[in-house]
């Protein structure tokens, strides 16, 4: 078998493949699809990677739209993806997964910055940093991955817009198993997070749906935070819905100094400073400190003040949630707080510090159903009852979020491209060429006028020359090659330069 993935490139339609969620389905249909798409002239290719080969080699040779299939076996590498529209798809065969293992030596398993990145069906273990980390990649999809004892965060998209985190199983993470940080329009659905310090953390992010997840046996189950000191300072419009938040009583093993190392064990859901958070239709049981805590930034200490960051939670709605058996053994501060309320057990719901005042605009449904504290000044949320017939007929009360299916964008976030057209050529010329070439004056390179005199209307020759310049004029330095520009762009820039009149 050849070492490189090259010979295994085969054309497929990348977009079509996104709809196939199971590998067996893919494999059965692959050859038929290949034929069909080849006939349709599709551009994308599949690149196959097998044990003994490097996934990164496949990424390096991939073009936008390509899909990289990784077969079962052990892989030990950091995979980074700085291209758009790349899919990394694991092939699971008979229960055998493609397994990325960091031996507690490698930093992160998968880093991506490109837009339209998808990663699914990987088993990831023993990395020092994160399992899957995004930095400003939009329109991402992270699905069906299995992350064990790996990293500070399991899945961490940062600075991302429009993304899906679905059907992942994560455990043994030292900070948040799933951490949505400084991101917008994200769905976190149907994941299972356990035995970690924090199950799911939504931090300084907006327009987030956290739905249908199972968060159990963590130190804290689900968190919505505004953390001070970050460059994007708000967290609002989060829906926490239909999750199971169970028995999050694992002693805190967070990294000293990390924010989550201050979370008391036994905390189901914590809203710290987050605004417009709706907590609805969750099952929250067996969390020994408290079911739901709504609080201000006073909740954490040992962090520098950030005057640009609003410390108080506003417009929190605690709607219908099933809660019982929370607060069996409150921790530290909570224990003292409950003693002042003549109770030795923790509450289902506690609002405190900056969260209690009426002007915060928060509300609660069925307040008498819970052992709740600090919500006396909160308004009543409507608590509509859904009948089976309503559900079947699709009738939803208008003030419930139940009808809202997603927080993702109806259209993908815009691509980040410099078009191969006149406007792109202007950006390139002014941004790069004009550093050395002025119109009628000698700078580092000869004046544009002189170049126009030499080339006339032959932009093609400029395009060819700048890709691989040689020393032409004894009194000027050799021009650095501009082969980083695509061939059409070099042509366009040549045309732009020849057309300049001042």
């Amino acid at each position, binding site marked *: 078998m050849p070492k490189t993935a090259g010979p295994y490139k085969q054309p497929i339609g990348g977009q079509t493949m996104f709809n196939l969620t199971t590998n067996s389905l893919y494999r059965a249909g692959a050859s038929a699809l290949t034929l069909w798409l080849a006939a349709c002239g599709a551009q994308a290719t599949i690149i196959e990677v097998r044990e003994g080969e490097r996934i990164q080699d496949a990424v*390096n040779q991939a073009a936008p739209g390509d899909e990289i299939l990784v077969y079962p076996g052990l892989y030990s590498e*950091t995979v*980074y993806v*700085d*291209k758009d529209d790349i899919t990394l798809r694991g092939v699971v065969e008979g229960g055998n997964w493609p397994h990325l293992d960091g031996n507690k030596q490698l*930093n*992160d398993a998968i*880093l991506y*910055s490109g*837009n339209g990145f998808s990663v699914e069906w990987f088993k990831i273990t023993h990395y*020092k*940093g*994160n399992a899957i980390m995004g*930095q*400003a*990649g939009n329109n991402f999809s992270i699905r069906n991955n299995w992350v064990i004892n790996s*990293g*500070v*965060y399991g899945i*961490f998209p940062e*600075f*991302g817009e429009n993304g899906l985190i679905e059907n992942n199983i994560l455990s043994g993470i030292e900070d948040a198993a799933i951490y949505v940080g*400084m*991101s*917008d329009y994200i769905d976190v659905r149907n994941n299972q997070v356990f035995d970690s310090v924090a199950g799911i953390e939504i931090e300084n992010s907006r327009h987030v749906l956290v739905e249908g997840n199972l968060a159990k046996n963590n130190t804290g189950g689900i968190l919505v935070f505004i953390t001070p*000191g*970050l*460059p*994007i300072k708000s967290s609002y419009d989060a829906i926490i819905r239909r999750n199971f938040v169970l028995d999050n009583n694992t002693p805190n093993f967070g*990294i*000293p*100094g*990390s924010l989550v190392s201050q979370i008391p064990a036994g905390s189901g859901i914590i809203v710290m400073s987050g605004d417009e958070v709706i907590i609805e239709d969750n099952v929250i049981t067996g969390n020994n400190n408290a079911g739901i805590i709504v609080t201000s930034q006073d909740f954490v200490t*040992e*962090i*520098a*003040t*950030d*005057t640009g960051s609003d410390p108080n939670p506003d417009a929190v709605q605690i709607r219908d949630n099933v809660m019982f058996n929370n607060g069996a053994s409150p921790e530290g501060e909570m224990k003292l707080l409950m003693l002042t309320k003549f109770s030795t057990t923790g509450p289902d719901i506690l609002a405190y510090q900056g969260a209690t005042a009426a002007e915060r605009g928060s509300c609660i449904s069925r307040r008498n159903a819970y052992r709740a504290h600090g919500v006396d000044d909160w308004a009543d949320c409507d608590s509509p009852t859904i009948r089976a017939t309503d559900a079947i007929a699709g009738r939803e009360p208008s003030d419930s979020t139940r009808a809202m299916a997603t927080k993702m964008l109806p259209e993908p976030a*815009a691509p*980040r*491209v*410099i078009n191969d057209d006149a406007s*792109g050529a202007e*950006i*390139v*010329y*002014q*941004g790069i060429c*004009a*550093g050395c070439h*002025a*119109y*009628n*004056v*000698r*700078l580092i390179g000869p004046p544009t006028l002189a170049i126009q005199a030499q080339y006339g209307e032959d932009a093609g020759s400029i395009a060819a020359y700048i890709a691989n310049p040689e020393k032409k004029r004894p009194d000027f330095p050799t021009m650095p090659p501009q082969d*980083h*520009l695509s061939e059409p762009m070099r042509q366009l820039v040549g045309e732009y330069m020849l057309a300049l009149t*001042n």
Partner: protein
Amino acid sequence: MMLSPLSPRCRRAERPSSSIVARMMRTPIKQAKAAVYRLLTLLLVTSLLVPAAAKGESPAPLEFRLTDTCPASFELQDGGCVLRNRYKAYRSLRDAGVGGLKTGLPLLREGFTPQQIDLGRYLFFDPVLSADGSVSCASCHDPAKGFADGRAQAVGISGQTLPRSAPSLWNIGFFSTLLWDGSKSSLEEQMQGPLYSPVEMGNNPAQLLEVLNGNPTYRTLFEQALGSSPIALDQIYTAITAFESSLISLNSRYDLYAHGYHAALNEEEIAGLNVFRSFVARCAECHTPPLFSNQQLAVLGVADAPGELIDLGAEAITGDASQRGAFRVPSLRNITRTAPYMHRGQKATLEHAARFYTGGRGHEVPEGESLMIHWHIWEPQLTDREIQLLATFMGALTDEAFMPEIPTAVPSGLPVTQARKFASGNDVGFGAQ
């Protein structure tokens, strides 16, 4: 855009003053001792310039012309210079100007006219802005030293050692958090600190106005660039802001990589980038692309001297004890040009600076001090090779292609100053150990 032969794009031609005094000053003074130098320049300012103006002599013939062309990578649009750069094709989340490789920049202070920028350039290099005509902005922000001064701590007008290191000015027009303690949000506000600090440039508003208004060349140039006379303080601040905001460094090899040309970085540099942005080293969490700063305050816990905390950082401004030792995250662009590093130059090299982050949380915090160390400071256990890779990667952030032309003469006739050499240099921080 029409170009005057006297004012070419970028390389602005200088027409140095032909006055005898100016010609006499240039060569001998450069070699003179600092004291003599300051004495003579003081004499020049007080006995020549001011009296000449006071006597109402006719203005000298115009020998300085302001360019009508924008600096490299800026384009004239509706009379103002607007940056043309590939990052402008990208957005950033909530327009915060932070993110990953293809991420838009924060808002730039742009739209200044070519004349304002050029006038700012003369002011920036002109020691007439200081009390005794001995130091200019460029004395601490020397283009040859990454617009810093190569010292651990900057040196003031009378040779005093200042408490902090001079920060680089590359890309400073993108910043809205200025100074090490983050206490200023605009360049106009910020520059009044050094101008009027008795230990920095030692000037005061009255003297500054008097001297500039007493200089016919400056009066003419200000009128051309800013359209009214006499010269007002705001006009001075505007012109210097215009020049400083034109210092653009966004075409490094890293940037080519970011825009999609992956061959621009070699394997070591890419490996360094991956350490840099990893969640083990976590550099990119605060030194966030594209500026390589998130403009936030952070408490690192770097000692000012072994076992000592001298500089209280933001706490000295706000009185908030949680901000004790908090400093602004600096940009890393052209960082190889500005050693030594940190707010007091405590780290001699990039390796020393990088190694601090793997030394353990609070390992330099003096006994008895309680600092709210930033949560990203942890124990990443970086290997020696990773430290080295980080330094290698930071070297790929160098780009000085749009270096402005340093004037050979300035309207005051004083010698153009750059970073000064003092025998008692404190060029190496204790971190070199």
